[in-house]
């Protein structure tokens, strides 16, 4: 095919080792296939591969005309917009490096990243982002040009370094006419060893670090996972998670290029629900809170339904719970159960999935934090193949993934293709894969701390392989302790497991250097209050409810259920909670017990409640405690309470040991 008929100048490469080369391949091979949609003015604007390649070429020419050189860094800030994805590609075509940033960061948060990564060009979405850049303009001398996509409100600005997207495109077209061979020559210069992108870590554990990824990292990982999950050009994806996040870069950019599937950009952040229904994605990623929100909304709406509908709903959800997940796992299911499930599908499941816009979801991922088994089972019982994966920015997402048919809510599955995982003596998870990052940009010390010379990466997470060969992540390695017997004690793991019970809000587990595990429990006032009302239990407030025998009984049942679970696990069976108490007040950030993001401050609690902790490890079954509290108006007072301490039954060999 002559190049004239392919305006983007498509061509084959023997080695498709960079994303720009793959782009040109797609523009040739899949030229009439839709690869990008973006909803604008109520209509899904659509681009095919050849159209998109053309836009990217013009944009690259425009950047070059403005002086963008090989190895220059291009910052990108904004929501998921087609043009911002094109900017990433355009920079890569020129041998530059895109640096996507979180769009909701403040100006002060992005300044460090912009300076650290030597960004000289920035493409932003709108006025809001332009304002941020202007705020820090004087502190970033390297930045030469800012391009904005949405001209709304920009007429007031006359800074010479601000460029409107449309005028950039006009400039690009002119440059392309004057230098017709320029674009292809630049793409030809790229190779797999080149740096493809800088992805910044979230910075929860310190200053954000720029993770350098080469095309080899990116493309091999994308290929492996596409093969594993059988993704194809027929898949549809909604791009709605931050562009700066490694997952979005892999799913909405790298995998889309390699597999050739279509990426859909929602109209704006508030229309995602409606947009999802319109698109019907087949491939979907959502962190646990997103799945949780969906479920909560269904349940709340069902509460308002007519009683007949409610009855039918709950009956068939029961059916789904029993058979749905087993059908999905291809286990043997009786004909009757299958028939019932099919009826339920017509009456409930299919309409429900349609309302949520997940009818077509063939493959869904969740990751980031532990997901509750109920939540997980709910979606699987509806026939949605939701899987957990375990990953890191440094691994280019994939470390472990749950294989089809072997899904357990408490593990993260087996190592992804070409990924090796091992556990250090201390219990830390390490991995090595083709996706392992090149280095942290301009930070050799951190690189050396994280990555060994032969390519193994420390994750900072403690975990182990269970009997089925699945990796179980239990905690951050620095939080994991040991019992006096030397056995592993993972407080966070116990706490998370208990928090999945609806009546429990917060848990603090103890056990480091002790003989057994104990816990403080904070009940969930709403859930337990509701429950108490239905049973006609009278109570006057949080403390009185938490002191109720029946509530203790309720919580004990939950703990024993968890203990039973833990007893099955060779490594965790010692972590069964033996004694517990219900705190007379909720843990509160105002009292310093939680951080503002509601994480338990373990050290502070150890200092504040030594009496209670000691009581848990004594024979007492009641303990008097006085605590200072801060009222909402700022005054302080003292609350005294007599807290009961209860025992929970242990299971497995620990129970036997106990009896001796």
């Amino acid at each position, binding site marked *: 095919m002559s190049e004239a008929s392919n305006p983007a100048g498509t061509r084959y490469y023997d080695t498709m080792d960079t994303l720009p080369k793959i782009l040109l391949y797609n523009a040739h091979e899949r030229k009439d296939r839709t690869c990008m949609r973006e909803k604008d*003015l*109520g*209509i899904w604007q659509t681009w095919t591969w050849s159209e998109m390649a053309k836009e990217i070429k013009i944009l690259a020419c425009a950047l070059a005309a403005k002086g963008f050189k090989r190895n220059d860094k291009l910052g990108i800030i904004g929501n998921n917009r087609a043009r911002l994805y094109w900017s990433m590609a355009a920079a890569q075509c020129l041998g530059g490096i895109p640096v996507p940033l979180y769009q909701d960061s403040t100006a002060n948060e992005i300044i460090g990243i912009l300076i650290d990564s030597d960004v000289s060009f920035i493409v932003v979405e709108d006025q809001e982002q332009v304002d941020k850049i202007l705020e820090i303009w004087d502190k970033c001398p390297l930045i030469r040009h800012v391009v904005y996509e949405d001209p*709304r*409100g920009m*007429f*007031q600005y006359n800074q010479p370094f601000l460029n409107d997207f449309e005028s950039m495109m006009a400039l690009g077209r002119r440059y392309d006419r004057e230098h017709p061979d320029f674009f292809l020559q630049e793409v030809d210069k790229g190779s797999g060893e080149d740096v493809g992108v800088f992805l910044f870590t979230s910075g929860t554990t310190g200053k954000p670090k720029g993770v350098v990824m080469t095309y080899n990292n990116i493309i091999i990982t994308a290929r492996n996972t596409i093969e594993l999950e059988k993704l194809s050009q027929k898949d549809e994806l909604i791009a709605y998670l931050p562009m700066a996040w490694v997952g979005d870069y892999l799913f909405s950019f790298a995998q889309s290029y390699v597999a050739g599937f279509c990426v859909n950009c929602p*109209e*704006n952040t*508030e*229309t995602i629900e*409606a947009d999802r229904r319109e698109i019907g994605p087949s491939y979907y990623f959502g962190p646990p809170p997103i799945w949780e929100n969906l479920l909560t909304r269904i349940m709340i709406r069902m509460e308002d339904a007519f009683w007949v509908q409610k009855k039918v709903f709950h009956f068939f959800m029961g059916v789904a719970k029993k058979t749905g997940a087993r059908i999905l796992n291809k286990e043997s299911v009786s004909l009757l159960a299958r028939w019932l499930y099919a009826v339920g599908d017509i009456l409930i499941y299919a309409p429900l999935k349609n309302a949520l816009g997940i009818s077509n979801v063939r493959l869904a991922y969740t990751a980031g934090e532990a997901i509750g088994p109920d939540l997980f089972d709910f979606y699987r019982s509806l026939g949605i193949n939701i899987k957990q994966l375990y990953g890191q920015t440094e691994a280019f997402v994939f470390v472990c993934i749950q294989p089809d048919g072997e899904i357990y809510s408490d593990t993260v599955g087996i190592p992804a293709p070409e990924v090796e995982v091992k556990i250090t003596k201390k219990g830390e998870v390490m991995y090595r894969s083709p996706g392992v990052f090149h280095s942290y940009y301009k930070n050799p010390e951190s690189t050396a701390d994280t990555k060994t010379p032969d390519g193994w990466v420390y994750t900072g997470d403690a975990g182990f392989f269970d009997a089925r060969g699945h990796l179980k992540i239990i905690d951050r390695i620095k939080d994991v302790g040991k019992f006096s017997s030397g056995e592993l004690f993972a407080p966070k793991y116990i706490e998370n497991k208990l928090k999945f019970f609806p009546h429990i809000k917060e848990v603090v587990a103890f056990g480091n250097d002790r003989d057994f595990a104990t816990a403080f429990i904070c009940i969930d006032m709403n859930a337990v209050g509701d429950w108490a009302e239905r049973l006609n239990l009278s109570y006057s407030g949080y403390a009185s409810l938490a002191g109720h025998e029946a509530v203790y009984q309720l919580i004990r049942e939950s703990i024993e259920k968890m203990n039973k679970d833990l007893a099955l696990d060779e490594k965790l069976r010692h972590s069964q909670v033996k004694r517990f108490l219900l705190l007379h007040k909720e843990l509160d950030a105002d009292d310093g017990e939680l951080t503002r993001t509601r994480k338990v401050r373990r050290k502070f609690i150890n200092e504040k409640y030594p009496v209670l902790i000691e009581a848990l490890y004594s024979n007492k079954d009641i303990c008097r405690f006085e605590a200072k509290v801060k009222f909402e108006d700022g005054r302080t007072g003292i609350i005294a309470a007599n807290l009961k301490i209860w025992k929970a039954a242990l299971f497995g060999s620990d129970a036997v040991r106990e009896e001796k």
Partner: protein
Amino acid sequence: MNTAIKYNETVFQGLSSPIDVYARTRSQKIGAPILQVKNVSLSFGGVAALEDVSFNVKEHELLAIIGPNGAGKSSMLNVINGVYHPQKGQITFFGETRHKMNAHHSAEQGIARTFQNIALFPGMTVIDNIMTGRNLKMKANFLEQALYIGRAKKEEIYHRQKVEEILDFLHIQPIRKTPVGRLPYGLQKRVELGRALAAEPRLLLLDEPMAGMNMEEKEDMCRFILDVNDELGTTIILIEHDMGVVMDISDRVVVLNYGMKIAIGTPKAVCEDKDVIEAYLGVNP
């Protein structure tokens, strides 16, 4: 008078703010007068609602009409809008002096408005409501529209695009298909503004667009009104009770009291005016 001082503080809260209204950047410079109101008097039986009121409105300007309750503010809008016919005086809009005309004529001339009480169609979606604002621009006849033939289809697509642009402008895409009756008050007000904008007015009359709103909704509304004024260049006459809002966003202020114009000028000048202070606070005994 103690109460007076207190009232003073609350009523004129906007005054102390250091914002200079004329420092506001804008795309269009304020131009020549486009609407002249000359010696207008309006009475209902023996009650005089407006007495000899004259002022003009300049192109691209944001003019506020303020005054105590019953001062004749809404009557003034109704006169400009062609709903009421003044007994005396004349109104010239873009060089066209009118003697007697109805609301339909004024809409054709390019005057659109919103109402003090929301006047939307609660059962229709946001899109359909805003689409009604484009009624005057549609040329297809009844038959064509009913059968969706001839010009109707092309027109529908064109007008839908215009409506979508307004949805985008007012950030109400997430509710485009929601029936208006189900929306909260603040959003309904925004939809009403959208419908007025759909007529692509040269002069926009806003009757208490922020009444009954909370602080956040008011801030949003102010932003949109300023955007309409700045980006679309629409001339706006605004009636509003919130003094802070009026002082912050308007270019000039007309003060009415008992149907008479007692002051006109920049917000700063108006709130230093002796007559205005008297009208609002009563005469110091």
